[in-house]
């Protein structure tokens, strides 16, 4: 049973449709990527999950039951547009936000100590928020989002404003939270982190779902007829009727070659040509990056829409 489900959700604002029959199904203890260009409707969907706005039609289910107001305690939300009270002290503010999520003061205090230590921000407890760097503020926000140990965590662009070291740290924490049993919805434009973190994705464009499924399955489906070949030593195979060479690069005693097959059923023929050219270390279908898929899918859809 999926932990969270949105079924056929539609939301219209006065002039435009933000979501048009969108469904997502988030398996328990997985990381679910919610992708889409700006203005696609991601934030509206997230606000519906958080019960900030209500859908015009469609159902939203948590643990197999329609979502209800008390469920806010089971959800942790780090919005894209996030901030803190600038004049308030860090610790006080974290305690306040934790109490709003239903923790007692003592319990909030205990857990905050743990998370502040883990994220290395204990020294900032008594400082005012305005004295903190953007990255520090983000860490405080991250801590307050996960503090009440929610079943479902929603991160909207969690890595903006972090340096690469902190991005690594937050990624590790997100993976750690999944280990501990949390289910995570992750909205982003950053496709690199999608490949790294997400198990499943949904791509929303112009209020509609245009692609969904497991990340590895999608990449294989979009793989096409390209292969990556690695040779020992400097080798450049010459193309023939079965394949053509797209690019070839010699580095650290190995040659990385991308080839394009004329017909994917001819792989045996191609491999024979490769082994004839040199010592083959690896032969793999070339998986497109999520970034490529994202751009191709969205552009295809948009040009289709333009034609109609």
């Amino acid at each position, binding site marked *: 049973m999926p932990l969270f489900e949105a079924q056929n959700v539609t939301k219209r604002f*006065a002039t435009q449709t933000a979501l048009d029959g969108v469904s997502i199904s988030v398996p328990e203890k997985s990381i679910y990527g919610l992708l889409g260009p700006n203005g696609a409707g991601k934030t509206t969907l997230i*606000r519906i999950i*958080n019960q*900030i*706005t*209500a859908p015009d039609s469609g159902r939203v289910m948590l643990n197999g039951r329609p979502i209800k107001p008390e469920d*806010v305690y089971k*959800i942790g*939300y*780090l*919005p894209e*547009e*996030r*901030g*803190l*009270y*600038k*004049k*308030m002290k860090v610790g006080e503010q974290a305690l*306040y*936000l934790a*109490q*709003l*999520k239903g923790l007692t003061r003592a319990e909030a205090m205990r857990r905050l100590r743990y998370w502040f230590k883990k994220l290395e921000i204990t020294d900032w407890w008594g400082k005012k928020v305005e004295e903190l760097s953007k990255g520090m503020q983000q860490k405080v*926000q991250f801590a*307050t989002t996960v503090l009440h140990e929610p079943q479902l965590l929603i991160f909207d662009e969690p890595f903006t404003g972090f340096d690469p070291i902190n991005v690594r740290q937050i990624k590790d924490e997100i993976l750690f939270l999944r280990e501990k049993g949390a289910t995570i919805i992750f909205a982003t434009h950053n496709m690199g982190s999608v490949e790294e973190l997400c198990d499943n994705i949904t791509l929303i464009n112009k209020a509609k779902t245009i692609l969904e499924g497991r990340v590895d399955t999608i990449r294989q489906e979009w793989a096409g007829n390209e292969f990556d070949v690695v040779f020992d030593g400097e080798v450049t195979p010459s193309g023939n009727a079965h394949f053509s060479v797209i690019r070839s690069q010699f580095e650290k005693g190995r040659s990385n070659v991308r080839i394009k097959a004329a017909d994917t059923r001819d792989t045996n023929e191609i491999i024979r040509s490769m082994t004839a050219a040199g010592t083959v270390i690896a032969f793999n279908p070339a998986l497109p990056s999520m970034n490529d898929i994202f751009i191709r899918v969205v552009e295809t859809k948009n040009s289709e829409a333009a034609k109609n």
Partner: protein
Amino acid sequence: MNKTSLIIQREYVTRVRKKSFIIMTLLTPLLLALIFVVPALVMSNNDKDFKKIAVIEDGGDLFKGVIPDTKDAEFVYLTNTSLSDIKSTFSEKGYYGVLYISDLVTTVPNAVQLISKKQPPIGLLDHISNSLEKEIERQKLLGYNIENLDEILKSINSKVEIQTIKIDEEGKSKKTSTGIAMGLAYISGFLMYMLVFMFGAQVMRGVIEEKTSRIVEVIISSVKPVQLMLGKIIGIALVGLTQFAIWIMLTLAIVAVVQSKILPEKTIEQMQQIPQSLGQAEPSVAGASAGTPAATQMTQLQSLFASAMNQRWGLIIFAFVFYFITGYLLYASLFAAIGSAVDNETETQQFMLPVTIPIILGLIVAMGTMQNPESSISFWFSIIPLTSPIVMVARIPFDVPAWEIALSMALMLVTIVACIWMAAKIYRTGILMYGKKTSYKEIWKWLTYKG
């Protein structure tokens, strides 16, 4: 703990701990105390400034000894001295000024001059002109050859003070003072205007702060927007009430300390005597007690005090608190809605106007109310909810029929419910709207969203 009370607590605690709150809370009573104490100090200091004034008359001695000395001025009548002799030297001779009376005085009103280096006090000028007028009148009457003129003049010398006595339905008469009622009306009306504006604007700034710092989305993922809005409104109301209570206590304390230390004891004795003699002061005959000026002053104070006690204090305080709370709720919810609709404080202008106009109109009508509390404008403005908090508190000291108060209060309550409901709808949508300039049309759409 209940989430709304958590929000109220945060709004209250963060504001009360601010330096600006502490400074404002401590400084304001000092300023208020100054307003009360300084005039008293000025009055008690008069004695030290004794003035000697030379009187010179042109062609005659009609006014010799006519101007009586007072406790802070002595009039020295100089004969055989001309104005030009003394004009440049009077201050070296120890005079404060020279009073020059020309021989045209009985026919031309401005034939009297007081030459001095400083601006003479109004009281002194009044004293001189009164004395001279009386003498000129006497001299003119002398021309009619009336016997025993001096005795007649003394016996007709009279003073009129109007005592207003109101008769209620049971026919009981009550001594009232229009002055007291006006003072009360002025203070309550103005205070109401100030408080509603000040704390209402604080609510607006608070909402804008939450919106611009982008914390609002985090919070409304845990609480309902209406809870956040009401929590803020109530929290700030409590801050206002706290500040108000401290102001009253500190002001009273400072006034008491200053009076006992600085003012001469006589003044205090006089003040203490007033309440004692109150019991004897029956509202039957007024102004009967002639005699020394001090005694006259005392009677005036007594009657003032008595009519102040005749005000319906219970009703006044109840009405003030009622209209403060409801008026604040009304305007604070409107201000909250405005704050939610804009991205920063400079954008509030276009929406502020329709909210500030009724407040200012209320204040203007309230001030006019003091001239004529029963006018139909005052009546309508004290019934219509947007202006009633200010106008009604200004009308109440003049006695308003119970049904009018009841109607005004009932309308107020209904309006608040409607207003908060409307504000909550605007607020809910507005706080999540960034970047685009909001129009009235847009706000109307927000109001009609369902859900």
